[in-house]
């Protein structure tokens, strides 16, 4: 009973907040609705017993990705007239994309209704793991069966990260950075001299 109630609550809120994400005029509101959609998706995953994926969804998407989205969007100078002009210009493209997505979804549903693809493996079974928690099961699969795919995904992310740093890193001349070890190595006698000149003599610097 409570499960059914929770499912419909999460599902309805997920779809609604997804729709409002697109419909909201203000980009900041859009991001916040998107976060609500993520959250409800995480709730749905908890309901089907995938609590590890749910937590990862919240940590990665809500805790990191959406914060960066918000960070960028907050600094936008929003001009609604310009937004609407763009809307008219990009309308055909948007419609085309929507049609493609809808057809794909429809095909997927039809295939699912026809029984779907059997996820068999060349060497036989997918090695079902009984009596272990989700985390252990995912770990066991990731680091044995899917080790190379997992490593490849890691390399792709590494390349993307290095690429982003290379593209945005600029060496600016004329700035003076702080060298902490140099600062710590500096002693008072390196910087100051105590002098007691006689009157009328002065100091040679």
């Amino acid at each position, binding site marked *: 009973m409570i499960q059914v109630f929770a499912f419909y609550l999460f599902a309805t809120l997920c779809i609604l907040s997804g729709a409002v994400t697109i419909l909201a005029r203000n980009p900041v509101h859009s991001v916040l609705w998107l976060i609500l959609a993520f959250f409800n998706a995480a709730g749905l995953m908890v309901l089907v017993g995938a609590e590890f994926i749910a937590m990862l969804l919240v940590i990665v998407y809500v*805790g990191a990705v959406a914060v960066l989205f918000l960070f960028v969007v907050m600094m936008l100078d929003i001009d609604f007239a310009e937004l609407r002009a763009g809307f008219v210009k990009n309308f055909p493209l948007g419609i085309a994309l929507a049609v493609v997505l809808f057809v794909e979804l429809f095909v997927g549903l039809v295939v699912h209704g026809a029984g779907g693809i059997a996820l068999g493996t060349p060497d036989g079974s997918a090695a079902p793991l009984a009596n272990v928690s989700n985390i252990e099961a995912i770990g066991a699969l990731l680091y044995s069966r899917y080790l190379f795919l997992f490593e490849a995904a890691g390399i792709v992310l590494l390349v993307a990260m290095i690429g982003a740093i290379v593209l945005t890193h600029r060496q600016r001349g004329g700035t003076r950075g702080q060298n902490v070890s140099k600062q710590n190595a500096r002693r008072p006698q390196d910087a100051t001299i105590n002098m007691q000149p006689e009157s009328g003599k002065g100091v040679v610097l």
Partner: protein
Amino acid sequence: MTDFFMGLGLSYDWAWGLSTIAGILLIALPLMLGVAMIIYADRKIWAAMALRRGPNVVGPLGLLQSFADGLKVFLQETIIPTAANKGLFLIAPIITFTVALMAWAVIPFNSGAVLADVNVGLLYVLAISSLGVYGVVIAGWSSNSKYPFFSAMRASAQMISYEVSIGFILICVVLWSGSFNLNDIVKAQQSHVWIINGFVANPLLFPMWVMFLISGMAETARAPFDLTEAESELVAGYQTEYSSMAFALYWLGEYANVLLMCALNAVLFWGGYLPPLDWAPLYLIPGFVWLLLKILFFFFIFSWVKATVPRYRYDQLMRLGWKIFLPVSLLFVVLVSGYLMATGHFA
């Protein structure tokens, strides 16, 4: 507790619902009282270190000061700036406060005495603590004012930076205890080194605890990392435009977060509800007393640091997070997992 309600003749669904609500109240109400008292303690410690008296007028020894403050802000008018985004402006403090309370669901107060005994307890804590930034960011943006906005940008960068190293530190703890469940993590610390309960006695994990303590201060934006509300630069940061109860919710949420960090220090590294030594007479004292004592000890450290350490500059904060904590914590993940593999811990 479900059994108790079922004993009263209720069906399982109702008993479960009632016991959950009772559990929430049992945690949230003492927590609120504790937050009020800890604000008083913070001010007293801070004052003592500055050779002042601190609050000493309201009630005996000034004990009722926090309640007087609470009544004061409750009676004040809520002012919403005309240029503010009203809905978000009011939601932001509620988010901060709610999130500060939510994470307490998985903290074990005694063996098995935990509201939600979930497998992914530690990940839940990470997920919830990463939500804390939204209260600050939304407040900064919706206030439509310069200083809160600066504060929001600082907060989002700061919290993301320190979450990374906190994640790696927690991985070391998880590797050693073999579980994400906080109750199991506490149990794994029983007589960890000789008769000492707690990972902190372990030479490989002690540096991790020191880093966790410092990262915790940065994550909760406590001094010396309170750049989000640096009064010398940003007035009051994201709280600048807030008044009345909305302001009070930030205060309560902030201190509930600090208490949570202290509780996490105790649970992850200092043996949680276990006594410091694995010695039978010490177990006569109930577990939640030990946990409370540890939380208070860590809160004293937090206050001590606040009273004595000058505020970091922003570039220093980023340097500490990315150039020192991140590589060192990564190194320790390798060291800890290597040591555990070599000694056959996972066999």
